[in-house]
Structures are given as C-alpha cells and as structure tokens.
C-alpha cells in the first residue's frame, strides 16, 4: 500500500539510522505521527539545531559547539600530553577514570584496511599538525585493542616517531581484580607475552 508522499519520505529518511530497516522505520514514523507529535517536533528541532551548531573542535576534532571545545579551552589541562582515541565515547570513559589530565585527539574512526577506510578518513593529517604544535611532548595511543585499533596505533605511532615525538601505547593485560582462573585465554596469552620486568 502506498501512503501519502510525505509519509513515505519520512520513512525513507528514518532509514538512514544504523540498524533501521524498512519495517522499523515505518513503526517509528507511525509512532511519531500518531502517538508523540510533540516528541517528533522536539526531535526535528533538536536535529536541526545540532546540525547547525555542532562541528568539530579545531584542536581535538571532538564534537563541539564552539571553534575550540570546552575541554581544549579550559586551560587546566596539561598541554604536553596528547591522548589519541577512536571515538568520543572513548574520550568520555577516559575522563571518568580521572587518571589523565592531558589533551585529546579524537580520530572519529579507525583504519580498517579491508573496508577501505584509510588515513584520509580518520584525519591523520590533522593529528600530525596537532601533535607538532610545539607544546606536545608525548602522544598516548588509546585506540582499541582490536586488529583495526592496533593497525591504527601502529601507523600513528610510526608517523609521529618519524617526527621525533615520544609515543606510548596504553597497556593491556589482566583486568582490575582479575583472577587468572577466570580470565579469557586470549588476554592471558597476551599478558604473558607482553609481561614486564619488575624493578
């Protein structure tokens, strides 16, 4: 059955969301139009406003309303450390640790050779410029410990080392309170292979 053209358009538009197929999109459209018109209005306005005001921070590449984001502009952070993460959610978690007071750079992705996602897609050129601002002394690579995250860390690392910038990688191994008996074999194997000397 063919509905009104604007309804079809709305359904089609909702399908741009990840994981939303034709069925889900239809359900969402009906819900918004029939049960929650106020919510729909609010959603439309929020989307509009976000699109207009949100951009990438010039320094850390995270989403920001101003040219330089709140965190980068705060002046209370240590400008000598720069932590590279894949996604804004990673940055939020690292902030929750309260164990780090330096600056960040958000790649907004990772190198994924088999998907054709290359250095251009993750703003490596901007990261290079950022890391060479004269203040950064150490770049901490906090990309995921997946094969893609590792590939990303390797290349960012190589690029920076070639420019005489100190690079470190976040450690991995047993989790907090980890008991060897209950830890997965992969993590355990890595912890053994990458063991460290006590001094």
């Amino acid at each position: 059955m063919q509905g009104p053209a604007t309804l079809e358009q709305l359904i089609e538009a909702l399908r741009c969301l990840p994981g939303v197929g034709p069925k889900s999109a239809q359900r969402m459209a009906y819900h918004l139009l029939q049960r929650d018109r106020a919510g729909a209005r609010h959603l439309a306005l929020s989307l509009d406003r976000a699109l207009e005001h949100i951009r990438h921070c010039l320094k850390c590449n995270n989403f920001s309303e101003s040219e330089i984001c709140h965190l980068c502009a705060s002046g209370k952070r240590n400008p000598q450390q720069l932590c590279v993460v894949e996604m804004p959610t990673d940055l939020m978690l690292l902030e929750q640790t309260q164990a780090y007071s330096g600056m960040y750079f958000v790649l907004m992705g990772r190198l994924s050779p088999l998907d054709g996602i290359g250095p251009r897609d993750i703003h490596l050129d901007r990261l290079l410029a950022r890391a060479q601002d004269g203040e950064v002394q150490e770049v901490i690579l906090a990309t995921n410990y997946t094969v893609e995250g590792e590939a990303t860390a390797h290349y960012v690392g190589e690029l920076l080392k070639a420019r005489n910038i100190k690079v470190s990688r976040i450690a991995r191994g047993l989790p907090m309170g980890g008991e060897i008996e209950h830890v997965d074999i992969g993590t355990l194997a890595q912890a053994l292979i990458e063991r460290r000397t006590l001094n």
Partner: protein
Amino acid sequence: MSSGFARQDNQQVYVLHTYPFKETSLVVELFSRQFGRIAAVAKGARRPRAAMRGMLQAFQPLAASWSGKSELRLLHGVEWRGGMHLLHGQALICGFYLNELILRLLPREDPHEVLFEHYEAALVQLANARQLEQILRRFEKRLLQELGYALPLEHEADSALPVEANREYDYVPERGPVPRGEAQSGVQLRGKTLLDMARDDYSDALTLQQSKLLMRALISHYLGNRPLHTRQLLIDLQQL
C-alpha cells in the same frame, strides 16, 4: 560430499573479516580448515558483555561451532585453540593483505585444506616479523597454485624448453615466461628470478624485486579491475 549443512562443532577456523549486522550482531567471514571460506552470523556479538565479543579477531587460531543450511550460517560459539599469532606493525598490515587476498580470490564453500595450512604457516612467520616480503611472495604463489592458477616457472610458455638463468623473459599471465622479444606484453624479468621463485629462494635482492612486480601483475589479472584496499592503504600511508 562433506557439505556444511548439519551442525559443525569444534572446527578449526580463522576470522578473515567481520562487519556489523543488524543492531547487535556481526557477520563473520571465516576461513575453516575443512570447509574453506564460510560466512556466519554471530548473534548479539556486539552487545557489551557478549561472550564472543573480543574473540572474533582476525589472525587468532579459533575453534568454532555453527549450523544452518543457508549461505549465512549461525555461529554458536568460538573458543581459543591455544597458541597466538601476535602480529605487530607492518606484519599486521601484511596479515590484512593475506585476508583480503583470500576474501577476494577464494570462492565460498570451497574446501582448501592445503591453503589453510599455508595460511597458518604464513601467520606464524608474520608473528616473528622477519622478511615479510618473502612470506607474502611464498603465500601468493601457493594461493594461486591452490586456486588452480599454478605458475609455470621452470619452463617456457609454448616450447616447454627449460628456463635459463641468464636469459631475459616476458611473463605473460595465463601463459608463462616467453623469451624477450617474442611477446607483445608481460612482466619483464630474468630467468634466475623464475628459477629462484620455483625454489622459494628470495635471498637475491633482484629476485625479490622482480617477483614482487610479477605477483602484483598476476594478482591484478585474476582480481579484475577492483584494486586491493590494503595495497591502497600502504600507498596512502607512505604519502603522509
């Protein structure tokens, strides 16, 4: 025929690639010892505490269980088989290259046990991260062999005369080495390169260089005109 229609348990596999499927699932491209390349859905594998999350990583020796009749199987579980190939840096990118070659050249549901063993051996060598190019050349040659495109290396294409080390040849895809001057196109190389490749001996720098050009031409020939992502990545990274 040992088709994979019934439930299969404890199958030796490597993950070649994964991509998101629906809200919380993954489609996993597997290379299995017994059934060749298969695809399976790992349901809920993208949920934060899913048992399979973190396990479905490329290059690790896994044992997998799946079932299903369709081209897309249902993955029930994976376990570590023990042993671990930790690929670092450039070796890791080489690993991606091997995976892309298999994904692009090996049809699904086609058992290739010998190739599986070559793949596993190549991963072990990559984990040791020495002489990466030689590892790739050996694997490329065996991959083509297993796919039925064995390379004539020791004899000339048409006359079947033995290749001579000191002579110059043009290597024509699907034909083989032709003495210089007799072919319109082909990859230019010397006889010694071909004989070295036949013996898997890449100690000579010129052999290494010429065999690289030859394999690149042959693989492009069999891939058609869609280039390899991993090769583009290496080029892009060198330009930064």
